């Protein structure tokens, strides 16, 4: 059996090395795209924590990434003296706070499609509020968000220069991924998983199901808010469209395409999605058609998604010399 921590650390290190090598290999447009993919991967990883570990299908994740993006944008524009890492922390808090507020109501109905529709409704509410409040720039949003400067004791780094902001995005993304992995594998993650598998059974072990679900929702909200905040200086604009429900479906797409239940599944999904969009950028509609068809194929024929199926094939290949009597179990909530 592989030991979990080294296997995860190796995978993460390899991904970070690859991402940091990109600026030397491809043009600036693609590096910009890679930054967005890394941010999308965090959106997907946090959704995967909710969906595959805690068993909550949220259709309102856009509200939390928008909360983080607007928090970061406001701090960068209005209070530039706040250190950027503190602004990122504040954005994560904004995501978590909004998640707690929405979760307190929505988590009263987690069964069936109710939770999906409640979270959808609340995120649309956030959408309307953002589009109609002057603090948030109404329909135009906030523009001209600068890339920040990091200054700590020894000296300062201007992130507006070259690919420096991209490097920061990759490092923060990697740290967030590590944190999410830890949650998935920790004591807390085991309790989340128990609740997903059988909430009633979990409650009769003394687990406070609603509180734990709220914690899962808040943790995913924080990571999602952080991802939103990272995107604001990258694209230099935030708009109410960030909270549109179409944005909420993206992490769902990444997760299912890449493989729900496998920790890195959403990251693979985000890369594949970006590749489809990039390859079909000149043909309007083709990316919708292809991602829709891929998603249908995943639901109807390949339930493990890309990474889940690849892992299963690899396992089968390895098991061939000595076939196991029992069928291989479905990967549960976080194989590295």
């Amino acid at each position: 059996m592989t030991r979990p921590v080294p296997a995860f650390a190796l995978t993460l290190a390899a991904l970070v090395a690859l991402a940091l090598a990109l600026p030397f290999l491809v043009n600036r447009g693609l590096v910009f795209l890679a930054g967005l993919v890394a941010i999308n991967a965090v959106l997907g990883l946090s959704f995967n924590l909710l969906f595959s570990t805690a068993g909550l299908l949220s259709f309102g994740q856009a509200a939390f990434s928008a909360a983080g993006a607007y928090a970061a944008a406001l701090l960068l524009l209005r209070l530039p003296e706040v250190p950027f890492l503190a602004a990122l922390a504040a954005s994560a808090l904004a995501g978590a706070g909004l998640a707690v507020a929405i979760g307190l109501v929505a988590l009263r109905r987690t069964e069936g499609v109710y939770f999906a529709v409640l979270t959808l409704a609340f995120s649309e509410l956030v959408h309307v509020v953002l589009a109609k409040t002057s603090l948030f720039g109404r329909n135009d949003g906030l523009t001209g968000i600068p890339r920040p400067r990091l200054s700590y004791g020894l000296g300062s780094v201007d992130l507006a220069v070259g690919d420096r902001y991209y490097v920061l995005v990759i490092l923060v993304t990697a740290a967030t991924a590590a944190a999410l992995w830890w949650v998935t594998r920790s004591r807390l993650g085991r309790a989340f998983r128990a609740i997903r598998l059988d909430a009633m059974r979990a409650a009769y072990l003394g687990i406070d199901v609603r509180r734990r679900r709220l914690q899962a929702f808040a943790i995913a909200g924080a990571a999602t808010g952080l991802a939103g905040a990272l995107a604001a200086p990258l694209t230099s604009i935030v708009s109410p469209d960030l909270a549109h429900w179409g944005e909420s479906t993206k992490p769902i797409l990444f997760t299912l395409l890449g493989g729900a239940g496998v920790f890195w599944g959403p990251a693979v999904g985000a890369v594949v999605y970006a590749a489809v969009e990039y390859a079909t950028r000149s043909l309007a509609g083709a990316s919708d058609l292809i991602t829709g068809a891929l998603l249908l194929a995943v639901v109807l024929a390949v339930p493990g998604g890309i990474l889940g199926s690849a892992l299963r094939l690899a396992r089968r290949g390895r098991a061939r010399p000595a076939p196991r009597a029992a069928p291989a179990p479905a990967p549960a909530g976080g194989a590295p």
Partner: protein
Amino acid sequence: MTPPTLSVRGLFAGYGPVMILKDVALTVAPGERHVVIGPNGAGKTTLFRALCGEVPARAGRIVFEGRDVTGLPGFRRVRAGIGRSFQVARIFGEMTPAENVVVALEAGAAAQGRARPSLRVAPEPALVAQAEAMLADLGLAGRDAAPAAILSHGDRKRLELAMMLSLRPRLLLLDEPTAGMASGDRRAAVRLIDRIVRETGATLLLTEHDMEVVFGLGTRISVLHYGEVVASGAPEAVRADPFVREIYLGRGGRHA
């Protein structure tokens, strides 16, 4: 005098407009093994669920060790010291048997505030050892390579018992613990429950169908009929009760 382990007074409960339990009263003394019997539809399962907190009480009081638990949700009753099994054993099928018990142990530690902050991703070795000892004690050693979903019916029941017992409950609520078992397994299950109760000193309340189990385990029996307790007492006294005889024997006497 120590208070009764469980005291139920004037309990009404039901689903929607249908009231199933009507003015149920029940007292379970410490160390007692109390069996609730009754014909199908008498309200055994509803009573069980009301005691667990799964069905809210419309009126009445449920007092556990002197503490009113009527308004407490299920998980708080578990934290207060009540263990509960399901008629069809419920386990976490994707996890290994040991993980199932570890989740229970961790939940217990968290509920009592004993869980220290930790960066560990694997469960604490002490908890794993405790879980494995518990499984070995219940005859489930060496099943740890595979997920619990592939366990047999009887093994699932034992795993569920292990999860429940790892929380060290002082009152065990068992909902038809031998339902769906062949008679050999049933006798083994009775011996196991008997041993557990002896070793842990827990008080036992169960609903049961099978007369062999009822009289093999019970030190006190309550009979439910149309949502009311119509007799409660020592096994022999209940057996001799004319009304109970009429309920059962008058209708063919085969089901309990």
